């Protein structure tokens, strides 16, 4: 189970609304490399993962991704609070506004709604951990791009925190991969799938 802590993992205090920034940052909620996909990927991969330390990594990183989803939601919420219709029209946020007003909805920057097809749970330890490492790098690149697109330091600050967490998570998944490989046949990592085949 989970227990909600009534705080953000990292503070968000944005003084100046900016609908154009919100329109691209929303992609880290519901986009292909966003936090919703990340949390669902790790928290679902856990069940069939045979190694205790890797179960721990998937549980703890998956949980932290939920906290990141909340941070991104807070950023988008504060960026769109108190906007005038003129600002909404001028910024291009009108295409989001027409469907969601200023409610928070998980979608990619280009408007595609969140879909579970952004993530995989393959039931094979090596395959899943490689996916996870790639996912962390893809999310890191997305934060790099967002930081390039935004110039408000109040927005950049939490984005930099989130970017840095992707780097740390990549490191932990790299260590998890080492555990997986150490448990497999050292001459052939692909001799059997530890999540399905009987271990020989």
């Amino acid at each position, binding site marked *: 189970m989970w227990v909600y802590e009534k705080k953000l993992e990292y503070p968000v205090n944005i003084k100046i609304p900016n609908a154009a920034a919100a329109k691209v940052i929303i992609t880290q909620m519901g986009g292909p490399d966003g936090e919703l996909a990340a949390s669902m990927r790790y928290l679902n991969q856990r069940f069939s993962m045979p190694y205790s330390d890797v179960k721990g*990594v998937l549980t703890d990183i998956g949980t932290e991704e939920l906290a990141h989803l909340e941070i991104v939601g807070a950023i988008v919420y504060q960026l769109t609070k108190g906007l005038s219709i003129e600002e909404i029209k001028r910024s291009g946020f009108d295409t989001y506004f027409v469907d969601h007003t200023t409610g928070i909805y998980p979608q990619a920057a280009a408007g595609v709604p969140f879909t579970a097809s952004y993530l995989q749970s393959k039931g094979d330890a090596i395959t899943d951990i490689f996916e996870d490492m790639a996912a962390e790098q893809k999310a890191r690149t997305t934060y790099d791009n967002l930081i390039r697109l935004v110039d408000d330091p109040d927005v950049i600050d939490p984005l930099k925190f989130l970017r840095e967490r992707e780097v*740390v998570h990549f490191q932990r998944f790299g260590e998890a991969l080492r555990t997986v490989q150490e448990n497999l046949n050292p001459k052939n990592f692909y001799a059997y799938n530890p999540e399905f085949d009987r271990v020989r």
Partner: protein
Amino acid sequence: MADRANMLRRVQAADFAVEEAALFLDTHPKNDKALAYYKAHQALRKKTVDEYERLYGPLTVFGNESQTEWKWIDSPWPWEMED
């Protein structure tokens, strides 16, 4: 309310230290330095959280101390601007 925000920042910092140590310990479960770091920050986190909850209300649904009021629902919620 600036005091609350400052106190919350201390909770966030203490929490983060514990979470980061926990993640490292997942893949280094016998690392002495990491275990010592975890223990020190676990104690600091508990002290900081207890102090925050006493002054500003519950951080989790398990932390409501008032016998006359359900403080859990009090504003601000985390996504709202701090003063």
